[in-house]
């Protein structure tokens, strides 16, 4: 099923490229309100129609894709790096170090992150720009999202630690840092990549869910999350099916990510 994976990869590249070029591709400014054209159906001027305030849906979708993808990717990188550091240390150094890392991981797993996010939003200075607010939201997602990955990485490091490869490296006089950096970390690459690709859609979906609660990225900046809030009025969908565009794109991207990461496991 290599074809499907290639197709999924092409979709991801296409979506990423169009979001990067959003400023050139978007027919209008994402925040501009064409108030006389509110809630219009798709037309030549507005290819995906307009929203309640007369803003061009396509321009908002392109910009929203950029924000959601960029922020989710950065947050996933941060979370995977944190998970790698904690997992490596916990798995390699047994005893009290492992215990402390375990407690820390459990603590973050049990953290009521929704309340943490609410508190963060309330503590932010009022002159915080929308960009900073969006960054802070994803930073917090990364800060609380590393724990499950850390457990997986720790388990892998524990099994690697006692492998013949590492025993030989130690026997040849390699120090701990060298063993970790040159022998264990490269062997963790597939695990780290898998964790990263799992976290990207997870963060995208979390931001979308936060958007439904009104806690995602602030207006007028678009994101998949705040664009999806329109779907709460699901009875609107049969009359205006084009409002499904952000949901379809989200499914397409998350699905493609899954095929890229684990396509072989699913199909073979």
């Amino acid at each position, binding site marked *: 099923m290599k074809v499907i994976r290639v197709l999924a990869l092409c979709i991801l590249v296409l979506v990423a490229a169009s979001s990067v070029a959003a400023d050139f591709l978007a027919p209008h400014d994402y925040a501009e309100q064409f108030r006389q054209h509110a809630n219009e159906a798709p037309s030549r001027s507005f290819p995906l129609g307009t929203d309640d305030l007369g803003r061009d849906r396509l321009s908002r979708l392109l910009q929203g894709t950029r924000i959601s993808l960029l922020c989710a990717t950065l947050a996933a990188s941060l979370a995977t790096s944190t998970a790698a550091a904690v997992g490596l240390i916990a798995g390699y150094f047994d005893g009290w170090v492992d215990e402390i890392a375990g407690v820390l991981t459990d603590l973050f797993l049990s953290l009521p992150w929704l309340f943490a996010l609410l508190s963060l*939003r309330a503590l932010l200075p009022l002159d*915080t720009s929308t960009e900073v*607010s969006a960054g802070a939201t994803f930073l917090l997602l990364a800060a609380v999202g590393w724990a499950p990955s850390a457990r997986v990485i720790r388990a892998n490091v524990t099994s690697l630690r006692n492998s013949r490869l590492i025993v030989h490296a130690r026997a040849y006089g390699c120090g701990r840092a060298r063993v970790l950096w040159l022998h264990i970390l490269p062997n963790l690459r597939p695990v780290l990549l898998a964790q990263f690709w799992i976290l990207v859609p997870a963060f995208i979906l979390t931001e979308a869910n936060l958007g439904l609660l*009104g806690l995602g990225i602030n207006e007028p900046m678009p994101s998949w999350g705040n664009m999806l809030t329109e779907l709460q*009025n699901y009875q*609107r969908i049969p*009359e205006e099916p084009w409002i499904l565009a952000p949901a379809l794109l989200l499914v397409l991207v998350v699905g493609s990510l899954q095929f890229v990461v684990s396509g072989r496991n699913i199909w073979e």
Partner: protein
Amino acid sequence: MTRRIVLLVLALVTVMHTERAAELRFAVHSDPKTFDPLLATEEVSETIRYLTGGVLIRLNRQTQELEPELATSWKVLDGGKRIDFVLRKNVCFSDGAPFSAADVVATLRRIMAPGLTSGVADLFRSAGEEITAKANGLNEVSIFFSTPVRSPELLFDQLAIARAHSAAPETAVLGPFMLQSHKSGQYVLLQRNPHYWKISPQGERLPHLDSIRLDVLANRETELFRFRRGELDWVDKVEPEAFERLKKGAHPGTLNVGPSLDSEFLWFNQNPNAPLPAYKKRWFQSRLFRRAISAAMNRDDVVRLVYRGYAHGAASFVSQANKFWFDSRLTPPSYDPQLALRLLHEDGFRFDGRILRDRGGNAVEFSFITNAGSKTRIQMGTILQQDLMKIGIRLNFLPIEFQSLIERITRTAGYEACLLGLTNFEIDPNNQMNVWLSSGTHHAWNPGQAKPATAWEAEIDRLAQLQHATSAPAVRKAAFDRIQEIVAEEAAIIFLVHPDVLVAVSPSLHNVKPSQLAPHLYWNIEHLSLSGLEQRREN
């Protein structure tokens, strides 16, 4: 054969019985927190209190006149310090026990008991520190207030009389319905009170309905869906978008009742101790600046885009729905960015075509907060952002969690401007004095002042006290009109809209007279009746 006949008779009896069962069904959005009418604090408990509780006087939601209920007559004495009621005779509680003045005295005593917290208790406590009741025989009762109260009779519209010495007040009620069963998270079932005293003009015992089923449905879309399928008899407070959908689908029974008592507004933080830069405080304390912002806001677009046309531009807290207290001389400010720029120019601001700057060269940029999760306020905020951008003002719009918002506006004063709404249930503005008096804790723009910070606030204080000190309606009205006019002139609070009351009612429900005042649909519950029950069962 005999067995067959018996079965046939039984089936016929069952059919006849089912045909009689007229059950009204509507949705509530959460479980009731209490069935005790004196402890009701939230909307669902208050709904049940309204449907089951008997009151001395009831405000007719259409005429806005008080009508006798358990009291046949009343008299306000001693300049509002005393009210005497003559009670209706031969009235019984739902358990058959007779109603008397002792029950009114016991209810008053309970509502004023220290530690009892509820909406009604707060209402009575705000009317006077000490309220006592004395029975004069079986059918007369006098209520004494420690201080004069304006329109004290209005308080009794919400006070459900409970039986004296009853351990569970919800088991013996005087209203048209009584509690039958409750399944947490699913429904509340009320059944007809067989001892209800009211009789229709045609001589029939009321209520017409046999029972009411309140389905607990948190999701408004599910509620609408079930209404469309005929499983619910009405939907109250329909969202404008859903209302439009119902209208498009030619659904009979959609009705725009007109502007509600509610309002949406914003204000600037004028607290001199607020943790804000001095130049921003100067902006917010400037009348010209506030009026300019008001003129730069396109209320018509807010009405058209956010409320789909189902709202009215607002000039005050009091909407057209409040027949007596509405000040018809006040009109909502027109959208006029040129006027806004002129006012700002007069106040020393300069607009270079892109950015507005004050005398000190500071770019005009401020933030305003609102509660997260409110779609309408977020849309309003987004519209205002673009409107103010046209006159060079950058607006940072921050929806935050409601408790944090309350903390900021009431305690820390850590905000610049705030967009909120007021859900109003009272028609007499006396209950708003906490907002208008400069010493009031809800004096939004600068609460709890030791003495009025400005001459116009001192004038509002004087007028507020004047309307409180007199019982002459014309004098009170004139004073309150002037208060509204001062607030509008000073743009102390910038009013945006009064949303309309939108309802959808099943055509099989009769005698529904939707009101702009809450409760919009069931205020005359005892007179409602259902037809087409056969069809409903098939559904």
